C-alpha cells in the first residue's frame, strides 16, 4: 500500500474534521491505501477524493477561509466543487449533490489508516459502480475480493438509490466479477 499520503491530504482532512464534517477518503486512492490496487495506480488517478456527507459544505465560507489560512491554493470546479492544489495530486472535496451521492449504508464501512477514515474496499467498488464502469480495476486488483459482500452491499443500498441506478450498478458489478474471474483463471462468482 502507499507508504505516505501527500501531507496536504492529512492537512485538509484535519481541517474538515475540526469543523465537524467527518471526511472519508474514497475512490481509487482509498483502494490503493488498503493495498487493493498497486502503488503505481496513483499515476492513473487525477486527484484524491475526500467525501463529506453534507451538501451544505458548498455554502460554508469558513471551509475556504481555513484552507486559505494555511497557505494552500483553492479553486472551484465548474459546478462549484472544491479543489485544492497539492505537492503531488490535487484534492477534491466531494459532497452529495442532489441525487448523486454515496449512500449512507456504504459510508458505515470504513477502515482507519494513519488516523484517517478510508472507505472500505468493497464499499468503494459498490459506490463506484453507481457512477461508472469498474472493470478496469479488475485488471489490477491485488487482493481476493468477497463477491458475496459486493452483492450484499449493493442490495443494502437498494432503497437509497433509484431503480435505474441500481440496475446499472448491478450490471457493472457482474461485469467486474466476470473480468476478475477471467484474470485469476477461475470462476469467483459467489452470490
Amino acid at each position, binding site marked *: 500500500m502507499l507508504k505516505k499520503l501527500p501531507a496536504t491530504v492529512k492537512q485538509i482532512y484535519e481541517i474538515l474534521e475540526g469543523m465537524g464534517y467527518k471526511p472519508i477518503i474514497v475512490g481509487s486512492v482509498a483502494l490503493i491505501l488498503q493495498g487493493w490496487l498497486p502503488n503505481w495506480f496513483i499515476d492513473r488517478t487525477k486527484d484524491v477524493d475526500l467525501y463529506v456527507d453534507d451538501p451544505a459544505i458548498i455554502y460554508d465560507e469558513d471551509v475556504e477561509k481555513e484552507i486559505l489560512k494555511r497557505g494552500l491554493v483553492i479553486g472551484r470546479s465548474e*459546478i*462549484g466543487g472544491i479543489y485544492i492544489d497539492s505537492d503531488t495530486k490535487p484534492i477534491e472535496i466531494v459532497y452529495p449533490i442532489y441525487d448523486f451521492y454515496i449512500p449512507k449504508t456504504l459510508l458505515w464501512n470504513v477502515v482507519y489508516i494513519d488516523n484517517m477514515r478510508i472507505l472500505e474496499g468493497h464499499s468503494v467498488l459498490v459506490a463506484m459502480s453507481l457512477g461508472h464502469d469498474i472493470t478496469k480495476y479488475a485488471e489490477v486488483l491485488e487482493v481476493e475480493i468477497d463477491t458475496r459482500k459486493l452483492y450484499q452491499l449493493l442490495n443494502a443500498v437498494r432503497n437509497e438509490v433509484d431503480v435505474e441506478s441500481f440496475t446499472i450498478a448491478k450490471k457493472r458489478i457482474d461485469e467486474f466479477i466476470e473480468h476478475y474471474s477471467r484474470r485469476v483463471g477461475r470462476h469467483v462468482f459467489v452470490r
Partner: protein
Amino acid sequence: MAVVNLGSYLSVLEGWKVCIDECNEECIACLDFSSLGTLLTDEEKVLLAIYLVAKKTRRYQLVAAMHIYSVKHKVIVRPETIRSAELKSDDIIKELRITCYDIPWETVFWRGLCYAQTFLDLEKPVIVKVTPPKDKREREKLRVLIEGKRITIKGKTYNVGGLLKKIGGRKIAPWVYLIPKKSLQILQRELNLKTYDILM
C-alpha cells in the same frame, strides 16, 4: 403557497411558472407536498419542486434554473429528502403541462449544471482599470461618462447618471471599478475600445 417564475433565475424560462400547493392555468406544473410527510421550508419546497419537474421532463434548462435557485438562495436538500420525494412524485406532481423527453438523467443533470454555471459566472464581479487619456478635457469627459456628473447639495457631493450606475458597478479607486462580468461588454461598447484601454 407559491407561484415561482423560473424566468427570474434563467431568462430563457421567462413565463414558465411552477405552482406549489396551489394551481392556476399559467403554470407548467402544479405540485402539492402535503403527502411528503417531511417538514420543509418554503425555499426547500421550491427547490424540490423544480428538481422533480426537471427530472420528470429531462430538460437541462430546468436543471440549470434549479441550480441557480439553490446558489442564489443558498438552499440545499439532502439526498434522503430527494429520494422520499421521488418515490412519491406521482402524488406530489398534480399537473404537468410540458413535454417530457427520454434522455438519461445523468446527461441532462450535468449539462444543466454546466449551463447554470455559465450564467452564475457572468454575475461575478470583475475589476476594471481604465487608462484615462492624458488630455485634461478628454479625461474629465470620460470620467463624467463613467461616473456621472458631480453635484454638490448642502456640502454633500453626489454622482448623477453615469454608466457605472446603469450597469450596477462601483468605483473602488480612481479609474478602478468593480462591475458584473456580464456588463463588461456594455462598458467596452460605450467607451469605444479603440479610444480607451480597459484592463482586467
